[in-house]
């Protein structure tokens, strides 16, 4: 698979589509907390100023006011960074958006270590754990700008609250124009028979690169893009693991309580196999350039390939 360097980050893909969608759906509104020029929600704001509310640097009030507006049934997109949406504003998200099941769509930029250069205060590395835990919340994570555009539509066309994890920096284009994305779906990007590597977001690219280097060692890895994290594609995961007999979940997130824990739980119940989970190992990261940071914290293609090879070895020894 030859991946092209992406022209834009997923936050831009999501917001570009939101701008287009503003003419298709004339009822939804957008709330921001003074980072519209960073999430690109400003594009919508410039085109539809009467439907754009910049609530200042006050995320809890922004989310709560958005809930107040969404009480009328209106769909409201709320834009901020993952760390702020999932922690500073977590209580109104849980009790006043998820519990009443309102049509609030959280545009969450700077997911995982893609905000590497900004340092730990801006790296949302627990966001998936927090958001997937809330009843009614649905969680998406596009791996490229095209997926971000398509998943924006999915979130707008499905009732209830959504959390969409987006990336700060442009990475790689994975998908063409005609790919379809559905809630609870996944993409098998590479077929293989020795191990399944399930990833999401930016780590999908690292997983694909890892699969290439594994192939050179004679290990045939299958790569899944879990773009829908809640609900996620249990059928595809189980079908793949039944075929490969080994699983590595790789995620730009704390290993604890992320998708690795979720999938380990599924496999323990239905299909126990040699398993490993690459993510932050009960540690915070640090500032730095993205490639150095993900390598140090075990998420580079090279590190994933080593980890996957070890799981395949476990399978052989069993």
């Amino acid at each position, binding site marked *: 698979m030859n991946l092209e360097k992406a022209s834009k980050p997923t936050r831009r893909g999501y917001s570009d589509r939101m701008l287009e969608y503003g003419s298709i759906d004339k009822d939804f*509104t957008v709330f921001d907390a003074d980072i519209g020029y960073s999430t690109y929600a400003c594009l919508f704001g410039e085109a539809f100023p*009467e*439907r754009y*509310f910049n*609530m*200042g640097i*006050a995320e*809890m*009030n922004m989310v*709560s*006011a*958005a*809930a*107040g*507006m*969404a*009480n*009328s049934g*209106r769909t409201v997109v709320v834009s901020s960074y993952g760390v702020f949406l999932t922690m500073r504003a977590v*209580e*109104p998200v849980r*009790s*006043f958006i998820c*519990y*009443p099941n309102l049509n609030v769509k959280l545009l969450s930029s700077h997911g995982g270590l893609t905000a590497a250069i900004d340092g730990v205060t801006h790296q949302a590395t627990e966001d998936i754990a927090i958001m997937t835990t809330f009843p009614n919340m649905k969680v998406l994570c596009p791996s490229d700008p095209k997926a971000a555009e398509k998943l924006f539509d999915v979130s707008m066309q499905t009732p209830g609250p959504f959390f969409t994890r987006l990336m700060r920096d442009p990475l790689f284009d994975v998908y063409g124009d005609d790919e379809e994305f559905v809630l609870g779906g996944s993409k098998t990007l590479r077929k293989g028979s020795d191990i399944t590597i399930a990833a999401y977001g930016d780590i999908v690219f690292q997983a694909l690169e890892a699969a290439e280097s594994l192939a050179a060692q004679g290990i045939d890895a299958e790569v899944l893009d879990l773009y829908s994290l809640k609900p996620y594609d249990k059928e595809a995961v189980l079908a793949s693991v039944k075929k490969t007999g080994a699983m590595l979940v790789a995620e730009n997130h704390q290993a604890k309580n992320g998708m690795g824990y979720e999938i380990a739980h599924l496999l323990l119940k239905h299909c126990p196999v040699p398993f490993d989970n690459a993510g932050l190992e009960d540690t915070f990261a640090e500032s730095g350039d993205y490639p150095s940071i993900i390598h140090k914290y075990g998420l580079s293609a090279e590190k994933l390939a080593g980890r996957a090879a070890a799981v395949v070895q476990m399978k052989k020894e069993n």
Partner: protein
Amino acid sequence: MEQQRTIQKRVRYLEEKAKEVRVEIVKMIHEAQSGHPGGSLSAADIMTALYFDILRIDPNKPEWPDRDRFVLSKGHACPVWYACLALKGFFPIETLKTLRKFESKLQGHPIAGKAEGIDASVGSLGIGFSQAVGMAIEAKMTRSKYMVYTVLGDGETNEGIVWEAAASAHKYHLDNLVAVLDRNNLQNDGIAEQIMPMEPLDEKFKAFNWHVIQINGHNMADVVDALMKARDYSGKPVIIIANTVKGKGVSYMENVRGWHGKPPNDEQLAIALEDLKGSLK
């Protein structure tokens, strides 16, 4: 003269209604053996004036799109909200006996969609105020005529979100938003000004570009007058700082810290009902 007599009649009616509300409050908290009587009783006159005089609502059409919206931001005081809704006819009085019980529509803190007339879920202090701001922005955006009313506690103003919401209400010129601050000067752990000094509250809200009205929150004529003035005020959001007594109407609860979140026992209920009967002239 004629007009004055009409107002006097309205005030007398509301004073009698407030007594009924207070009786329902203590009865339902006794029945549940759980709940918050102090802050429910302090807000009883304000809530009665809203529900039986000010709010444009129809208990037969709780989802009427043009209805005035109401959010009890001090959500723990929901017995007073539930009492008003029941007495107004949103649901049967009998329902009040189910407060906080298994499978009741009257949740420990009110949830939108569970009981008729609850426009927003509340219970975490400060967040209801922000939701009211969002509702008022919605009304402005859609050029709707309805008003949004909210009642806050004074301890609630400790929450930073209250001031975030206050700033945003000014930004969006929400003169369709009326807040009432139930200034009973007691919060869970003690005297509000000792727990966290917030005075001068009037100057604070003025500095946030709100119009401020100060009243005795147990003088029904003043309460009604202030609410009418607040509704008609244009250009700024309005807050009515209503000086009240926590536990108002029940002798042993008035201004006593311990009655924030404690139910009366059988004996205490009898005294409370006697106190309230005494006040029922």
